[in-house]
């Protein structure tokens, strides 16, 4: 679709060059801007499929998914889903998941800042609970819910897309070998010192974090994870997440 296709000649003043040339400049600018935005958000995809293929992909994508934001950094969120149905990309079955990982990294880079988790307030909680006489101190932790930092995304794929992503980062060794059978992968995308980070998670860790992300209390998330992974121990993961900027706020569930 084009905003210019129906502009009649009699609406526009004649210039030294034909109207079609003026419209081509606008059309090219528009396509160029969207293509640049996509290439900026999906640098690994560009490397994996090559620039010529990416150009075709971008053209087809923008025809079906016009921009909805005046901020070009918002453009391209629908590309992973689009790739699922993009016939020329079907031989690379991991491509949609790789694109989803790149979009999560792109969003992590531009995500708003949030104050870090207030660890002192967290440490004071058991005392406060005890003073309030609200219940048993030891199980305070169980009733906590955590809000994720806006830079964070949890992603799972049957393919080792995290290894593919790492192999295409600036400065990565050029000779790498990735077996697609090395999947699946489960990752937490976050931001550290301004750069997107991709951290691999074990299956039980991923399940537990996904529960918390969906709003479960630590206690419920742990109980549900233990149903599938009897050896799961959140004690190892908890400080890493609390200190790593994954969470920004906590709330204590009211108990009656």
């Amino acid at each position, binding site marked *: 679709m084009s905003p210019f296709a129906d502009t009649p000649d*009699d609406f526009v003043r004649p210039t030294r*060059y034909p109207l079609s*040339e003026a419209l081509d*400049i606008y059309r090219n600018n528009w396509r160029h801007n969207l293509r640049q935005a996509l290439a900026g958000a999906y640098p690994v995809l560009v490397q994996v499929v090559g620039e010529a293929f990416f150009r075709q992909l971008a053209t087809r994508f923008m025809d079906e998914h016009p921009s909805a934001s*005046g901020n*070009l950094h918002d453009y391209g969120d629908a590309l992973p889903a689009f790739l699922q149905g993009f016939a020329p990309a079907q031989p690379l079955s991991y491509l949609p998941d790789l694109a989803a990982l790149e979009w999560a990294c792109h969003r992590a880079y531009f995500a708003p800042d949030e104050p870090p988790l207030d660890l002192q307030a967290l440490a004071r909680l058991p005392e406060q609970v005890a003073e309030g006489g609200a219940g048993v101190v030891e199980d305070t932790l169980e009733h906590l819910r955590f809000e994720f930092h806006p830079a964070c995304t949890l992603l799972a794929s049957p393919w080792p897309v995290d290894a593919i992503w790492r192999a295409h980062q600036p400065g990565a060794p050029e000779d790498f070998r990735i077996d697609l059978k090395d999947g699946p992968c489960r990752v937490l995308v976050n931001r550290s010192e301004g750069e997107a980070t991709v951290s691999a998670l074990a299956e039980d860790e991923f399940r537990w974090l996904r529960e918390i992300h969906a709003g479960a209390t630590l206690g419920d998330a742990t109980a549900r994870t233990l149903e599938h992974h009897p050896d799961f121990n959140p004690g190892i993961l908890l400080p890493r997440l609390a200190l790593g900027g994954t969470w920004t706020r906590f709330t204590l569930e009211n108990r009656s």
Partner: protein
Amino acid sequence: MKALPAIWPLNAGIGLRAPHTREFLARRPKVGWVEVHSENFFGGGAPLATLLQVREHYPVSLHGVGMGLASADALDPGHLNALRRLCDAVEPAAVSEHLCWNRSHGVVFNDLLPFPYTRAALDHVAARVQQAQEALGRPLLLENLSSYLAFKRSEMTEGEFLAALARRTGCGLLVDLQNLHVNAVNLGTDVRAHLDALPAERVMEYHLAGASPQEGCLVDTHDAPVDEATWALYEAALERIGPRPTLIEWDQGLPHLPVLLAEARKAQHRLEACHVALC
């Protein structure tokens, strides 16, 4: 927090783009101020943190490319909020947007699109400028556009439109001399008449940039040094309107930082010559 340089100096500045930022901060070159594209800093993280570091040492002007004030669609409240938050964080010397539209029926074209300069359009754009200025709590500067076509239905020139807009809304004007040159070449715009139409006291900033000839017309590509014709227009503007903070814009095919700074010095020399002449 350090005291911030608050005043927008009557000097030349550069458009600061991401590939130059690290070197710029390390060298801290002698340049009056910098301008950045607002939308690149709508989030937090590294972009905003770096901009705030720059802000500790230089006045910063925020130049928007995405608000599309002349669109028939409503202004995007999320966009306005993001710009408001950025203004609060950066305390910019100026906030500017383009006299253009970019949105129709929810589809955004991410370009700077022209429209017929009619009285009805003036009512519409004035209301939008007022809405944006109220949301931001500060006046906007509106920039003239480089256009590749002009409309038969226009009832006034772009210069007359901008002058009326400034009177109606209290907005300032950003005069892009490169855009005027492009329009003179492509559309036969009378640049001197455009400059004469503008209320000099509302003009707050000049832009200078390079363009590329493509087939039969000149395209506003911001990928080259300022050309002689644009320097001549700049001198004409300095004479007719007076000295104002002046920006060198370079967005594509970025040169090394010293090349950009050398362009800014050329503008600075002309500004200073103008000061001397005025004294």
